[in-house]
């Protein structure tokens, strides 16, 4: 048995039956990281030594008959944008290369309260700006299905680490698709919760009205288990919403008879790779077979939403990243003498090209003379997008689209063309604009064996419905039993 192939719920079963120990599980993962990291490059900071120490402590507790939680000793990986007390949180930027958070993010407090073991901080595009993880200051993560391709982004390290069995699951963040798109490109499950379901406290801010923490898992059941851990109101994040406590594992049901599925035709048109489209059509036919009511409809917002996204996200980023002033966050230009030089030189030296590009765009759309034409207009389009989704959810329980217009692309093929990279987010950004939950589940592979993801979008705080929709499909089609990453060179 290869321990690292197992899902967390399978690990839990084997721990219960005493077939496995916490120490064995963590040893298996630490060895897997050692073996695969040289080719996958998913980690910015490995925490394997301290992880093994924690594992032994928890195992001792169990051996001494002490009671521990259901997730105690289960390893996890954390996107390097989530603050972890005493451990570097770099955001994959030279700016925060040596930044050590003085406190834990609320989601980390929850992970730690479960006594889960953080095996490392995972790679990403700098400040989560990108769709390929190539904009990391430190390294380029590879797609485990084909090492010459990108894992997607911005949470590419999280997606690749789960896909390559280097961690059983991971946390990521999603501002415009940064969980769902890499999950699709790496053949794993990725969930972006409703805006406000999970606390953003301790998440390094990119675009505060769009950012949300979510999960990467091997299957939908694990996704429900981990969402149970991280969801919940937090008074430290005033945008977090109190929806009471829910058990998302109760939604793991196979019966979807009568489920109303909306298929927006504009998300299957121009720019969508034919193989991706045909794979989605097969998946939708499967839903019909399973008893769902499927209807095609018009949701003509994708292009407006993408433009709106880049205006709003960059505007918010230009403001949020103003805090990096060369005074409080580790990096200061050695050349700077005056205060003004500290600001300018530190920022110019330590931000990467894409981050500067977005700060410039964001500053431009907020500047006098352009505010009304771009920023204000984008905020109106945001209302339009929300209204259109509201109308759709009067008729449908879920909306199904491709997660990404293409499968994973080759490293270097888009990194010098910002507009082309932005178009990769066309299917996912609307969900963030409207603050909705979305999940990506694998639904097949293309002719080159690269995974294809299906995005299931739900109404606000209807995570139960999308989890159920994803679970029923997964149980019927069993992607993980048919396909595995090959680490092709």
């Amino acid at each position, binding site marked *: 048995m290869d321990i690292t192939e197992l899902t967390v719920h399978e690990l839990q079963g084997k721990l219960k039956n005493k077939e496995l120990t916490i120490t064995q599980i963590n040893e298996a993962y630490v060895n897997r990281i050692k073996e695969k990291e040289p080719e996958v490059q998913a980690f910015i900071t490995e925490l394997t030594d301290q992880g093994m120490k924690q594992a032994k402590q928890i195992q001792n507790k169990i051996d001494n008959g002490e009671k521990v939680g259901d997730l105690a000793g289960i390893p996890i990986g954390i996107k390097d944008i989530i603050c972890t007390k005493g451990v570097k949180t770099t955001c994959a930027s030279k700016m925060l290369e040596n930044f050590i958070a003085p406190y834990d993010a609320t989601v980390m407090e929850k992970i730690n309260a479960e006594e889960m073991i953080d095996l490392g901080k995972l790679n990403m595009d700098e400040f989560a700006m990108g769709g390929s993880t190539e904009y990391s200051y430190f390294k380029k993560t590879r797609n485990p299905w084909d090492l010459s391709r990108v894992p997607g982004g911005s949470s590419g390290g999280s997606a690749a680490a789960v896909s390559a069995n280097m961690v059983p699951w991971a946390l990521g963040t999603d501002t415009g698709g940064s969980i769902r798109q890499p999950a699709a490109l790496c053949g794993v499950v990725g969930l972006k919760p409703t805006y406000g379901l999970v606390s953003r406290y301790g998440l390094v801010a990119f675009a505060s009205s769009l950012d949300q923490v979510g999960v990467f898992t091997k299957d939908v059941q694990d996704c429900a288990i981990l969402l149970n851990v991280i969801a919940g109101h937090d008074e430290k994040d005033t945008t977090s919403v109190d929806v009471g406590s829910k058990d998302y594992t109760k939604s793991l049901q196979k019966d979807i008879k009568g489920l109303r599925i909306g298929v927006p035709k504009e998300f299957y048109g121009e720019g969508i790779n034919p193989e991706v489209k045909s794979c989605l059509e097969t998946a939708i036919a499967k839903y019909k077979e399973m008893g769902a009511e499927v209807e095609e409809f018009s949701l003509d917002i994708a292009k407006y939403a993408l433009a709106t996204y880049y205006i709003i996200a960059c505007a918010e980023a230009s403001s949020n990243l103003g805090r990096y002033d060369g005074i409080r966050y580790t990096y200061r230009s050695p050349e700077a*003498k005056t205060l003004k030089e500290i600001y300018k030189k530190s920022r110019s030296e330590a931000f990467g090209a894409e981050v500067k590009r977005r700060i410039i765009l964001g500053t431009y759309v907020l*500047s006098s003379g352009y505010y009304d034409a771009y920023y204000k*207009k984008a905020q109106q389009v945001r209302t339009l997008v929300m209204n259109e989704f509201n109308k759709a959810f009067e008729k449908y329980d879920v909306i199904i689209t491709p997660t990404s217009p293409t499968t994973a692309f080759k490293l270097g093929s888009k990194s010098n063309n910002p507009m082309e990279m932005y178009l990769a987010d066309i299917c996912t950004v609307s969900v963030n604009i409207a603050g909705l939950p979305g999940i990506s589940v694998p639904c097949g592979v293309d002719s080159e064996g690269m995974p294809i993801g299906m995005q299931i979008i739900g109404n606000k705080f209807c995570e139960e419905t999308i989890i159920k929709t994803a679970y029923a499909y997964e149980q019927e089609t069993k992607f993980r039993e048919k396909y595995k990453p090959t680490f092709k060179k």
Partner: protein
Amino acid sequence: MQVSKEEILHIANLAQLELKDEEIEKYILNLQEILDFANIVNNAPTEGLDITIGANEAKNIFRKDEVKTFDNIEGLLQNAPEQDKHMFKIPKVLD
């Protein structure tokens, strides 16, 4: 709308960025291309629609204004590029 060199320099200055010559050229092209695309928002049917500033209902969230101490001073200061007597150090601001 055509983006000029002066405009890029003005924006970079507002954003506290210093651009090298080759960066100026590159960002003019990038910004132009992205703005040409972003102009599509002006075709969206938004007549009479209000603006939305956040994903959820905009309302004030109140809590008691209580002092809570954060005791990890060392943790905060370890991120200071320069520090002195438990303070973040910067060059002289006024002559």
